[in-house]
């Protein structure tokens, strides 16, 4: 579990949801978060292992009571099949970011060094910029961004967190 804010008692919690891949489902989900005044940090959606079922990872800011309500309210959406609260310690989480950084020839080598330290990749090169791809936890991505900021970040795209339980346990829908 991530750090608890001493003022609010809230921390960042990861939920994984499986939902029918139907039109409007995603708007139902995002609408719910807004309507119920839940504070979400990221929401990422894509295909799951089962055709017709999408998987979302939601990072929500809250305490146990908030997370419980979020899960229950998500279950009330007709197209939601399953929602799991993924405990951070027993799960792996990753995020991907693309960073376009200002990189004239003079600093290019320095940046290349940073990219290597973070085990990131340079995926595009232009006259005055580099585009870097990094995968990792939010902390790791935050650190690289902090290191790159002095050079001038021209553009940044982050996917939001995806998560999976460690070991052979799954969050899949039992048929």
């Amino acid at each position, binding site marked *: 579990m991530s750090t608890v804010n001493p003022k609010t008692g809230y921390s960042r919690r990861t939920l994984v949801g499986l939902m029918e891949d139907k039109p*409007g489902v995603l708007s139902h989900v995002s609408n719910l978060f807004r309507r119920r005044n839940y504070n979400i940090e990221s929401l990422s959606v894509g295909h799951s292992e089962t055709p017709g079922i999408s998987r979302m990872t939601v990072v929500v800011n809250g305490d146990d009571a908030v997370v419980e309500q979020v899960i229950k309210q998500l*279950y*009330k959406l007709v197209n939601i099949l399953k929602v799991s609260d993924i405990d951070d310690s027993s799960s792996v989480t990753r995020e991907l970011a693309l960073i376009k950084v200002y990189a004239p020839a003079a600093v290019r080598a320095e940046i290349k060094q940073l990219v290597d330290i973070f085990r990131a990749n340079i995926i595009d090169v232009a006259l005055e910029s580099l585009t870097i791809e990094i995968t990792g936890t939010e902390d790791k991505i935050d650190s690289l961004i902090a290191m790159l900021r002095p050079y001038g970040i021209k553009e940044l795209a982050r996917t939001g967190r995806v998560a999976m339980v460690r070991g052979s346990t799954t969050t899949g829908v039992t048929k």
Partner: protein
Amino acid sequence: MKLNGAQILWECLLHEGVDTIFGITGGTVLPLYHELVNYPIRSIVVRHEQAAAHAADGYARATGKVGVCLATSGPGATNLVTGIANAQMDSSSLVAITGQVASSVLGTDFFQEVDTTGITMPITKHNYLVTDINDLALAVKEAFHLARTGRPGAVLLDIAKDVQQTVIDFEYPAEINLPGYKPHMFGNARQIKQAAEMINQAEQPILVAGRGVIIAGAFAELLALVEKAQLPVVTTLLGKSDLPENHPLCLGMGGMHGEAFANLAMQNADLIIGVGSRFDDRLTSTAETFAPKARIIHIDIDPAEIGKRVRVDLPVVGDARNVLRELVSVVKPAEHTPWLNQIEAWRKDSHARDILHQECGELQPQFVVNQIWEATEGKAIMVSDVGQNQMWEAQYYHHLRPGGLITSGGLGTMGFGLPAAIGAAVGCPDEPVWVVAGDGGFQMTLQELATVVQERLPIKIAILNNGYLGMVRQWQELFYQSNYSGTPILGPDFAKLAEAYGIRGITISDSCEVRSAIEEAKTYDGPMLIDFRIEREQNVFPIVPVGQPIHNMIRRPIPQGAQG
């Protein structure tokens, strides 16, 4: 069978047992109305779409069936919105059908196009945009299933016009396909046993009964439980009539305008058993100050209601009828004599403050409602509007008919009364239907007087007319230094207005005329409106000021000469 989409819709509605719809036609539902005449479905044409939704809602609450309303795209759909939100908030089974522009022009800001499913997403249990004829029948079947099962609610079907006109081979779908929808119907046996143990141990228990009891039809089970374990019952506004209100264990409505003895009972209870109630703020005031000495058992079909507002010591998720039936069999008989005596003492103190019987003179609204209650012996279907009139109805009409009060609880929709009464009268033609409304709310939907006449509905309308938006005026008097900003309102001569529509209308301004006026309305063969000119600045008491615990009430004054 080759049918077009319009025919398929009506075929599906027949399969779902629909025999009545409330609506208004328009451009994108022309094909639907064109085919409707060939089906044994009563079409009630109202004067404004909001009324169609309220009428369908009132029909659903009065009959226990699904209410259906229909409107065209654009303004027709947006006019439904208030009624849909109202039904959803009070868990009323409503299927709203709207026409939508043809799928080929969808999204182009076409004439009378609006994003109906987008607008109604947060105010429906679920909604469907049907742009493919092959999806229509299944969507209809699912919509009805969702509207009537689990925690009921409003479901919207938005059907593109071209879908209504496309012909396919129709077969009614045998099964629905809702893998993510599994209402919890039966309570967990271990939790029910635990609930019984908590009830057995309690010395000062209170059962809080909400609308879930009515929806589940759990009247007999509730009665059996409370009699066996001698549990005094406080109801919510929407739970009125869960228990016959002349039953000694029924304490009536609690909360912001609840009886003082009901609120004191909840605040002093050592156990609260909530059944089909969401412990909303009008019942509990601030959640932290509610029933401070009590452990709380919460029985509800919607898991999301557990722990949403008040702390819960034991949840039981299930249908009220199923859970109560199990609970009756495991709970031990009890007496609770000292507790019941204490409550009786509080009740006597409240009765000393009642203003019920009046000689001639200025008209008191409480007296008017009380007289309607006496004349109808508590058995009428009462449809109240919102505001002071609604609270006086709740305080002075003691319901004996299960589900005998139809009112807008959660959303508090002024203008709900008359159209909802239309739905109730259509659904229950053999029962007396009365509307109690204020002059403010009544003027929000009074165009439906035309529908009353058109459908020959013998609805009796009592307007408690004080020339104010009275509840807000009361708040201004009590909490805003009597600054009556925006609350004085002008009204028409309601009796003359009624007569203009072909409805019998009279005006009453003296107490001694009340009885005969109500008797006349009761026996009059047809709709009748009585404009009661009540004392203008009467307040609803008790009242719990916002933010106060529910035992901090401003009580009714003790009438001069009374003991107590």
